[in-house]
């Protein structure tokens, strides 16, 4: 019985793939850093090594396609239970079948991975719009609470857009942040306290936007149900234009 334990990162998963490929044994289980304490059998630890992860990445990309890897990465970031096993199977299948795997949409694990990847990409796209920066005087600071671990998918977009600003996009629940400066960005653990304070100037601009937001709605067309379907309550917490 082979059970592996890895550190829960995508690089870790790539190293696990290398191990599985070398041993030629299909794993019976994969454990993340925190889980599986109650399991009786000892799990084999996978050491994450950046360089070999990069090699696996390159080899996979050459043999399959950039698209296949992107699907796998997006699905992985969903952090849904069991998705790492699914991604592992997906990449193993891709290794055997080559780029044609993208066409097997009606089969597992392709269907699950693509569907999950689509949801992660969807949430990322949503947050390209929903990130709200507050100008603290030193940096632009935006707290967010996404379902999926989308921070690594947001950094590039905002650093290309705001190369003249220092900015922080803070995943409040995961206590991580994208730190952007001068057109580049990095991920870092982040848990500020005391909480970021508002400046007078920022409150003034926020008030302007709130006023704009209110007057942009057409009273005759009022349709809160439609608003809710586009903008579920769970995403509203950090939106400066909303009262609730």
């Amino acid at each position, binding site marked *: 019985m082979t059970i592996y334990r890895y550190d829960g990162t995508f690089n870790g998963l790539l190293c696990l793939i290398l191990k599985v490929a070398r041993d030629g044994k299909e794993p019976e289980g994969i454990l993340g850093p925190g889980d599986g304490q109650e399991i009786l059998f000892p799990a084999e630890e996978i050491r994450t090594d950046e360089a070999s992860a990069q090699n696996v990445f390159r080899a996979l990309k050459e043999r399959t396609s950039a698209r296949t890897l992107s699907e796998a990465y997006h699905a992985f970031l969903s952090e849904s239970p069991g998705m790492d096993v699914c991604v592992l199977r997906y990449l193993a299948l891709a290794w055997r079948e080559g780029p044609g795997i993208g066409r097997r949409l009606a089969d597992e694990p392709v269907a699950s991975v693509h569907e999950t990847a689509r949801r992660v990409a969807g949430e990322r796209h949503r947050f390209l*719009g929903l990130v709200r920066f507050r100008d603290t005087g030193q940096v632009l600071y935006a707290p967010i609470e996404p379902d999926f671990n989308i921070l690594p998918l947001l950094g590039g977009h905002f650093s290309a857009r705001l190369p003249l600003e220092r900015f922080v996009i803070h995943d409040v629940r995961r206590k991580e942040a994208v730190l952007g400066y001068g057109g580049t960005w990095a991920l870092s653990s982040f848990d500020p306290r005391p909480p970021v304070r508002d400046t007078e100037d920022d409150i003034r601009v926020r008030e302007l936007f709130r006023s704009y937001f209110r007057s942009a709605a057409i009273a005759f067309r009022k349709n809160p149900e439609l608003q809710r379907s586009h903008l579920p309550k769970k995403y509203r917490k950090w939106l400066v234009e909303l009262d609730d």
Partner: protein
Amino acid sequence: MNTCDKLAVLSDAAKYDASCSSSGSKRQNTSGTGNAAPGGICHTWTEDGRCVSLLKILMTNVCAYDCAYCVNRRSNDVPRAVFSPEEIANLTMEFYRRNYIEGLFLSSGVLGSPDETMERIARTLTLLRGLHAFNGYIHAKAIPGSSPELIERVGRLADRISVNIELPSERSLNALAPQKSRDSILRPMEYIGGRITENTTERRLAVRAQDAPRFAPAGQSTQLIVGASPESDLTILRLSEGLYRRFHLRRVYYSAFVPVSDNPLLPALPRPPLLREHRLYQADWLLRYYGFTARELLDESTPDFDEQLDPKTTWALRNMHAFPVDVNTAPYETLLRIPGIGVRSAKRILSARSCRSLTPENLIRLGIVFSRARHFIICSGRFCGEPGLTGTYLRNRLLSGSRKRAQVCQLEFDMA
């Protein structure tokens, strides 16, 4: 009046323009602030469920014209305000860097003459692109009757440029918008359409990109008001079809008429015809992405859409001789015509069926609306619907099958 009050007045005056799209431009950031996202990005949704993508404001709601359908008409008693180009540029930058918006949508009432107004719009855009090095999305209005030189200037600064036709026939224009003529609207549209086509060629042939500056890379759009004048859906849809073909418009927007006046020339509508607007949007999609023509969807004997059923299903019910279709062999164009199958699921069917013969379970997995499509397809060698269910019976089944009552929503994913 302070900025906050002005903003309230001038966004209130701009909100009846239905266009919200920020898509279709690939403008990159060149050491300044902002870029364009080709697919467009929505930033929030107001209480009416419409998205906010751009800061949509008028430069002024002072207007020399007196168009009966318009809230800003000269004879209307509303507070008036004027933004300076500097104020608009600053507001845009402050909102943009906080990621409130994707860019600016600037329109205006006619302040003095069309050319004076257009000149102020051009000055605002110059400030943004120059002084503020802003590379985010800009949608600007071309004021009917303004000169080609000014339209040229604005077209080089903006991503999208639009002229609103508003009323779908010359007769209605004459009756309700006496200062505008069909000509003053169509001439700038024709000019813009010509310049966009020309520009595409210029840019293809240019050795260096800077030799051929972009002209409205996100194309041209327009808006038609639905329900303020007596035109049928057929008239409106044929006009749209002509605009897509002749001027290569990227989008035609439809705006359900909101009663903003008690002018006797206007119909007394109890509420805006939102469902009709929705059906027109659906039909518009069928023109642009599904290969339908206006004539296939409507004719003189049925010049208006069935509000109960979507235009594609209505078409299918009138053309049952074209069905059932075998999803495992039918070409893409035919798949697109099956109710319950859209662009995305048709493409998925094409890829998935190259690996295996598709079963009904596979189809559901691929995301087609099986409860609707089944009446029109053959799959695994079998007709998936109920034998003998035709005509009115089938129609009723499809009506009750759509779980929710026909609902008004906004089609806003823009595949431009």
